[in-house]
């Protein structure tokens, strides 16, 4: 077992806010951005790049999302959700590997 610490608690507070708090994008849209799952064009291109290869995001990706009717505030939120979502998967994968590595040691 790993101890919950202040760093993880602060991270969960951020994650909870962006997914469940007030926003211009719906909670469902934010959850799909966070999970990089179930997104339709053209958002799938923009947010897929944010998750997997952010250095390749272009002006055209934003232009396509705006042309599809997304506001600047919605895109602000959805890009943040996509970025935090990928980071969460990495954080959780690291913590799970650590928990497995220390499993069975004394005092957990």
């Amino acid at each position, binding site marked *: 077992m*790993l*101890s919950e*610490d*202040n*760093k*993880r608690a*602060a*991270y969960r*507070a*951020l994650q909870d*806010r*962006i997914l469940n*708090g007030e*926003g211009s994008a719906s909670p469902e849209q934010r959850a799909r951005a966070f999970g990089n799952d179930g997104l339709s064009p053209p958002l799938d291109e*923009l947010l897929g*790049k*944010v*998750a997997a290869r*952010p*250095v390749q*995001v272009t*002006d055209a990706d*934003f232009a396509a999302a705006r042309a599809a009717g997304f506001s*600047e*505030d919605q*895109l*602000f*939120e959805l*890009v*943040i959700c*996509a*970025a*935090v979502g*990928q*980071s*969460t*998967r*990495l*954080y959780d*994968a*690291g*913590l799970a*590997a*650590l928990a*497995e*590595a*220390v499993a069975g040691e004394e005092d957990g």
Partner: protein
Amino acid sequence: MRLEVLNRGYGPVTKLLFALIRLFSGYPVPDAAKLVFYRPDFYGARAKRFTHEAMRGPSAWPAGDRELMAAYVSQANECAFCIGAHSATARRAYQDGPKVAAVLADLESAPVPGGLRATLRMLGKLTREGKVDAEDMRQVLSAGVSRQQVQDALAVCAAFNTTNRLADAFGFEVLSPEGFEAGAKYLLKRGYR
């Protein structure tokens, strides 16, 4: 930045603050700082709290090591803004530019302790490949790194995987070397709050 709200969507108090920062530092406010002032209730307030905790909160890793981890993760993501910002901050924290340059050029031959090297190797793999396994973690632990230190390093990794993505998606403007130095001085004095 690619969203006009991030360039201009600030109230008068924040605009005044930006003007004062420019006046006193001699440099425009970096895009990384602007981002956390836009609708801070959505992202900035909690992002700052988490990043400060990860980078300056209690940990057996000194701030210099954590800044080096930030630079190393940023390099794995090819994020020019964050490599510049956090390699400058690590250099300043260590008072050792060649060490930071050596780590970013070739981790395996760089003059750093084995525990830090093993930790950086694991963070690089996690960032690039999206996964690590228990064996990767055992290698870090057997290099003398405590499990709490691994958790602390994973928090740094999470903070910068988020920031790198936002920097490249929103299009943060890369600063001059002098601008990065000014930012490094600020981050070591004040942290991320």
